[in-house]
């Protein structure tokens, strides 16, 4: 997966402490921010100018891709050339903290009540806070309103409607998603009561893995049923799902906010709704991705940086952020604003986000993806028995974690 290659890249960095470079005197009036080039970078720059007018503190923005920032920081940080504020998706948090890159935020001094609870959770590692969230990415039901005028309450109803519509020979497909991708499949696991790592209240416990429990078994069985309906044949990949949907041949699928820009451009009809209820009365508990601003451990102006971040993510600016870049803000007060609620698409994602949990951000999570993907594959493709397969997969996960921590 490209993701793994990225990770390899990320993990490669080493810092050199240049005994040569004296610390560039960054003066107390300038903060450096790294952000991916594009709309996000432009937005921070624009806000930076406002901040400068208000406070006299200059904000300098350098375009650095979010996924490469940790590498760069590990190098530039110790040499005094690193940014004060960095940004990356929350699931890298644990790893980067172990490398010593981030400063722990003084949580007790902050009022975080207006932030979405799960978003703040995502910014914590081992019970301590390291970042302020600014955006959420959730999965929701993306459907073609011409083909599905009204979204049913329950998943079973959705499947029934989908089956009626489904006709492979005419290239009509009712409902699809990439079942072999654990990120997408997790919604069912969570909804039926499985969990990846137990949340002890003060962090996630990597030794307590709930992927072989009753809930997990039920989830996998449900997926097998889906496969048996013929709605989602072998080889259904995200690429194909997107293609079919844009053509108007797919009634409904599961996707995230990264997709609808493409749909708009291509002129495809789409609408978004939260995922319907599972047959046990729960909603699918999908993963959300959280993007947050962090303060570098090497910064000389940590307090100032924190102030800027808090300003950047306050209610007014979060709304502006959404307007400029169509992110899903991670603040309850913004989500509840009437102007915000007008956008049905974002609303749907936001509602789904309230039913989601953040992807575990501890490094041990890296060991989970492959064994679980294999487990789902064995059940769906090779008729494996979930009660047998899942415990074996959990064994593999545990083995991987043990190796990691040796």
């Amino acid at each position, binding site marked *: *997966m490209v993701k*793994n*290659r990225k*990770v*390899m890249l990320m*993990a490669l960095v*080493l*810092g*050199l*402490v240049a005994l040569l470079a004296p610390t560039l005197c960054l003066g107390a009036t300038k903060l450096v921010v790294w952000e991916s080039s594009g709309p996000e970078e432009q937005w921070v720059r624009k806000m930076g100018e406002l901040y400068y007018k208000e406070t006299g503190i200059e904000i300098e923005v350098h375009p650095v891709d979010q996924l490469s920032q940790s590498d760069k920081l*590990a190098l530039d*940080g*110790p040499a005094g050339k690193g940014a004060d504020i960095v940004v990356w998706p929350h699931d890298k948090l644990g*790893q980067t903290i*172990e*490398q*010593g890159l981030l400063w722990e935020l003084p949580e007790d001094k902050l009022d975080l009540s207006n932030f979405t609870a799960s978003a703040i959770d995502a910014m914590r590692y081992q019970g301590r806070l390291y970042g302020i969230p600014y955006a959420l990415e959730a999965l929701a039901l993306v459907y073609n309103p011409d083909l599905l005028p009204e979204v049913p309450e329950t998943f079973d109803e959705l499947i029934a409607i989908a089956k009626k519509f489904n006709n492979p020979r005419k290239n009509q497909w009712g409902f699809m998603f990439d079942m072999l991708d654990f990120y997408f499949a997790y919604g069912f696991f969570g909804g039926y009561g499985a969990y990846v790592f137990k949340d002890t209240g003060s962090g996630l416990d990597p030794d307590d893995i709930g992927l072989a429990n009753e809930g997990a078994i039920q989830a996998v069985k449900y997926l097998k049923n889906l496969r048996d309906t013929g709605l989602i*044949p*072998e*080889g*259904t*990949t995200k*690429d*194909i799902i997107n293609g079919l949907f844009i053509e108007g041949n797919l009634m409904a699928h599961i996707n995230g906010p990264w997709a609808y820009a493409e749909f708009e451009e291509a002129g495809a009809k789409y609408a978004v709704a939260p995922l319907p209820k599972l047959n046990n009365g729960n909603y699918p508990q999908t993963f959300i991705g959280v993007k947050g601003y962090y303060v570098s451990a090497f910064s000389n102006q940590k307090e100032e940086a924190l102030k800027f971040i808090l300003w950047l993510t306050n209610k007014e600016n979060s709304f502006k952020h959404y307007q400029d870049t169509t992110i899903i803000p991670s603040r309850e007060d913004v989500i509840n604003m009437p102007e915000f609620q007008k956008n049905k698409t974002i609303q749907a994602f936001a509602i789904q986000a309230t039913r989601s949990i953040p992807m575990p951000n501890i*490094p041990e999570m*890296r*060991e989970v993806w*492959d*064994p679980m*993907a*294999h487990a789902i*594959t*064995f059940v769906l*493709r*090779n008729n*494996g028995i979930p009660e047998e397969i899942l415990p074996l997969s959990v064994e*593999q996960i545990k*083995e*991987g974690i043990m*190796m*990691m*921590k*040796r």
Partner: protein
Amino acid sequence: MQRNLIENTGSNIGRYTSALLSTLYMGAGQIANGQWLKGIFLILFETFVLIPSVPLLLKNLKGLITLGETPMVDHSLFMMIYGILAAVAAIFLIVCYLVNIRDAYEHGLAIDKGGKRKGWKETLSDMIDAGFPYLILAPGILCIILFTFLPMAFNIMIAFTDYDLFHSPPRHILNWVGFRNFVEFLTTASWANTFKQVMLWTVVWAVLSTLTTYLLGMIIALILNNPRIKFRKVIRTILILPYAIPAFISILMWKGMLNTNFGIVNHLLTTTFNMQPIPWLENVFWTRFAVIMVNLWLGFPYSMMMITGILQGLPNDLYEAATVDGASGFQKFRYITFPLVMFSVAPLVIMSFAYNFNNFNVIFLLNDGLPAVFGLQGKAGGSDILISWVYKLTFQSLKFNYAAAMSLIIFLLIVGFSIYNYTRTRSFKEEEMLR
């Protein structure tokens, strides 16, 4: 006249004294031998280059051994690299010193035996003559040291440290842990069976991928060497396309084309030939087949180009003589072309084999080593080769030390095999002959 002057001034102090003098200080012996220019140059070298670099070299060598003391200030990985550079520089300086001693000795020997002291013009031209190979090799050797040797040494060193996620600089200082990584990794889990299967496929993959690309490349090169074929330039250019197009997109396209239910390949097979769709990426055998096929597509232009180049160097007169003797095209191929090409190509094929043994680009991008096979441990998939499996086990867990350790083992395996085979090829045995 100048020579007489030299001969008459000073006595000959003997070669051992010269050597001794040069041992004490570079250039001293040369001066004693009467080679003023060389001597002064060497003295300057020692004074302004060698002696000042000693403290720096010693510091970095020490850093190599301790890997730093203070976290967040000393960065272990960097100290490793600096240490390697320092070691190389130190070796270079020592060699210079030794050459200097030997030179003083040799020159002293020549004089002892009654030869004349060489004037500086002669010495200079002698040096250039003897040093010519080293001179033109110097940039290349420097590059090889920096860009091939240095990373390799670095990799190997990491295999003996505790570098992983929870021990990563700059937050932590690394420690040398001896062979612990090797022992731990190899004794960890019940991977014996998985290892066997993966190893077997790795060998098969390396052999097949190398052979298919070379054979096809050779066939096409030979066919296109025939002047009777029209539009050769255009044909060659079309056939270079898989090489010209970035592999990433090509492999992605193949992946889409080979999709079981939605791919065009199966679409054509089912509609035109009424076959059942082939589970290209879901079945172990078919995935392996696909991987080889895609690799062939990507790789044959390279060998085609290379062999075309080699063919240009084949001597014409052999062919002419063969035509005179009445040989057919096929006979010419079998007795002239094929052996001569193989001769040049054999070491390259071996290098390609070694390269393909570790080439997991296609495997990774086409299907990420999948399909998942029940019974394979440690996240191994049906088309995973040794290196991609090791990568999943170690790099994904950020256990860089394990990854480096396993790369070392794989390296020793390949090198052993390659050297053994290379020394048995005629290319090696007859190499001296050909020169």
